[in-house]
């Protein structure tokens, strides 16, 4: 990360990399997601969504070469440069074993997220008779108490960042601490990447903190789009832009079709 006023500056796409033009918000988001897996070693980088998937693949091709990746179905990719090359087999049942063993860092989605990182993908409104039924808890309860988890929110808004989630599918810091023991033993939330910012929980009581704003985004914008009070440090860094090599890999190898720009506007 760079501090404001240095680096390439807020919002000013510089046409670095392969020379095809401005760095898009989606590309900044891919790199911010990739950063979640920095230093993770030989663990499975599991994802939900296009941008986190590209982030995991980018991390694997650059600064986290030991990561394991899936093809989105039941195979482990030998290299993200060749999605048809498998190095292993990971059907759902084995996926759940990897999760329970803790050798996994997943970036999940969230329909709601609160200040302690409690996540809801189950339903909106009263659980007994929801206003809007969503997916169901899926593996979020077990993921969050078994291994590191991060979140990806493609549209940062007060509808997602709420004071209180309607159903705790993924366990946040306060609920893990309250349950204690077996629930807290392997619990660990890392970061939340959105289309506006990167957030983390690096505060004494693990409340959500603004870690960086993406180039062109102001702190006020992030506050306005968050339905609870964020911890905001005096100096908020700007999320780093992709390096030329990262742009080359992203544009020329991992996502030639530009699917990333369909998930993030701007």
């Amino acid at each position, binding site marked *: 990360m760079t501090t404001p006023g240095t680096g390439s500056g807020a919002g000013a796409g510089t046409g670095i990399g392969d020379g095809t033009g401005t760095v898009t918000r989606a590309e900044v988001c891919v790199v911010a997601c990739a950063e979640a897996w920095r230093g993770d070693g030989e663990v499975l980088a599991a994802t939900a969504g296009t941008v986190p998937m590209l982030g995991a693949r980018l991390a694997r091709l650059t600064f986290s070469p030991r990561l394991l990746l899936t093809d989105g*179905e*039941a*195979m482990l990719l030998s290299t993200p440069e060749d999605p048809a090359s498998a190095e292993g*087999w990971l*059907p*759902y*049942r084995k996926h*759940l074993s990897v*999760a*329970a063993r803790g050798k996994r860092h997943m970036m999940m989605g969230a329909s709601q997220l609160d200040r302690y990182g409690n996540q809801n993908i*189950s*339903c909106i409104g009263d*659980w*007994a*008779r*929801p*206003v*809007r*039924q*969503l*997916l*169901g*808890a*899926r*593996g*979020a*309860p*077990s*993921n*969050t*108490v*078994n291994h590191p988890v991060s979140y990806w929110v493609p549209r940062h808004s007060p509808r997602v960042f709420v004071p209180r989630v309607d*159903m*705790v*599918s*993924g*366990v946040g810091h306060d*609920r*893990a601490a*309250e*349950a204690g*023991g*077996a*629930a*807290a*033993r*392997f*619990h660990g939330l890392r970061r939340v990447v959105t289309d506006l910012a990167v957030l983390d929980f690096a505060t004494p009581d693990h409340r959500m903190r603004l870690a960086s704003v993406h180039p062109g985004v102001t702190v006020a914008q992030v506050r306005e789009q968050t339905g609870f009070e964020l911890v905001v440090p005096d100096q908020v860094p700007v999320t780093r832009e992709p390096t030329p090599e990262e742009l080359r890999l992203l544009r020329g190898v991992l996502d030639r079709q530009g699917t990333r720009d369909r998930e993030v506007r701007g």
Partner: protein
Amino acid sequence: MTDLDKRLSLAEFAARIESGMTVGIGGWGARRKPMALVRALLRTDVTDLTVVSCGGPDVGLLAAAGRIRKLVAPFVTLDSVPLEPHFRAAREAGALQFEEWDESMFLWGLTAAAHRLPFMPVRGGLGSDIPRRNPRLRTVTSPYEDGEELLAAPALTLDVALVHMNRADVRGNGQSLGPDPYFDDLFTEAAERAYLSCEQVVERFTGPPQSLLVQRQNVTGVLHTPRGAHFTSCAPDYARDEAFQRAYVRAAGEPDAWREFEARFLTGDEAAYQRAVEAHCAREGAAR
């Protein structure tokens, strides 16, 4: 050999399912669902079912027809379409009881049933709202030095399991040729009786030994149902029929359109369904 021939017709199968039963359905989301068996159930008046499923359109169709009293599931999805429209409508109307499980709880609940154990200890679910929404869930304390208090995933014991395989023999051995067996073998092991539908009935199996997933001692009946997983995927025999799934979702969003969908696809037998799908695809193809 003849005494081991477990083949039966869809009508014979459906006649063996009774209202009030607990029915486990294999596959995952909109992948390798025993849809021909589900459609056969829709042609009976069986109702009041407890359905146990990693849910997809199996849950959707049964919910739309009002056959589900209680659903035990970690999710219901169509994969390429994240939210299942009928499940959503049923939940929002309060039309079914929902026991929401975590995926790993679900795996170990089936495993407990398959092993004839009352429960299996799991970490997943602790700290979340899953136990708070489900008063029957209990914790268990490890008797060893660690003393950890874990969630006791209760055995998901089934009256009946329904699964769809790529290949089967008449004795009830089933072969899964796709990349993921899901929990299908566990479903058959957790059930009193299991019905296995398949794309092809074979005399001899070919392919890797690991693909022989379902064993005949766990299978009551075999049904030959080509394209029986439609419109879900049945890799490598066929992919999900995305166009048809979109048509299903569109119809589900509007009562009149749904009645028309039912009239067109779900009033006849399985052969009529497959013919109607073919006609639909030909028409859509011509329109494009």
